[in-house]
């Protein structure tokens, strides 16, 4: 009985400590500072790269996954062939957006040039 109470108490205590740590701004700042250190971030990046490589290698040799990807790709392509409107709309929207961006940058550049030329001429003519 005493052991059970002791265990419950210990769990509650650990839970409280962890919650306090999670909410602690000081700890958060400490972790951020730690992660910003080049040796720490470098080590984390290397570890992540290793894990990604390992998973990719495992997936590369997985026939069932390859089969699944092929089936899904075929299904997507079939769907896109049967319903091309959304893709066409997406491309049209993107093209229109790009054209609008170009137009806005041309207008802005011309407007700036208007002011620059006018200021230069006024300076040469000795006008304010």
């Amino acid at each position, binding site marked *: 009985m005493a052991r059970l109470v002791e265990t419950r108490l210990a769990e509650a205590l650990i839970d409280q400590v962890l919650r306090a740590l999670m909410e602690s701004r000081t700890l958060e700042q400490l972790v951020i500072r730690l992660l910003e250190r080049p040796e720490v971030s470098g080590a984390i990046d290397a570890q992540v790269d290793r894990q990604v490589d390992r998973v990719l290698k495992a997936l590369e040799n997985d026939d069932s996954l390859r089969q699944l990807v092929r089936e899904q790709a075929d299904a997507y392509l079939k769907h896109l062939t049967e319903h091309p409107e959304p893709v066409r709309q997406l491309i049209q929207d993107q093209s229109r957006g790009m054209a609008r961006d170009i*137009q*806005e940058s*041309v*207008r*802005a550049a*011309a*407007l700036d*040039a*208007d*002011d620059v*030329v*006018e200021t230069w*001429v*006024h300076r040469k*003519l000795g*006008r304010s």
Partner: protein
Amino acid sequence: MTPRYAGLVSRGAARVVDMALLAVLVGGAGWLVQQFLGGDAVGCAPAQSWWQVRRHLCQFIPYVIPVAAVWFPALYYVLFWTTVGQTPGMALLGLRLLRSDGGKVGPVTALKRFLAVTLSMVTLGMGFLMVLVTERRRTLHDLLAGTVVVYDWGDASRARARTGRAVV
């Protein structure tokens, strides 16, 4: 809202776009007419009888094309200025033509302005350069026709935010 008047570069760029467009349109129309009427660089084949209408019309090509080259731009500018207040070049650069009192430009004003542009040209471009020194950035043809050119980007708030000044 106080309008912001368009400067030399914006107006010049709009004019270049319009001139390029006109060159394509006039050139294209001329080519089509020549194709239809059967004229070529050498000339038209002489008509053998009165029903060879195309051959008869072909004789007029040397006169029609120069006349069209003058009238087509007049029609282009006057039509766009009076209907939408901007030519395609002006639309690209976000410019709009207004009467100096802020009203819409009518056909008489538009025609007067088109003819006045010739004066701006014959003064070796000085009429265009007047935009740099006149109040409300007006060219010679603007002064003669009683017009102004303002920025009109549609989304006024964005333009205002960018320039810190009001845009019509």
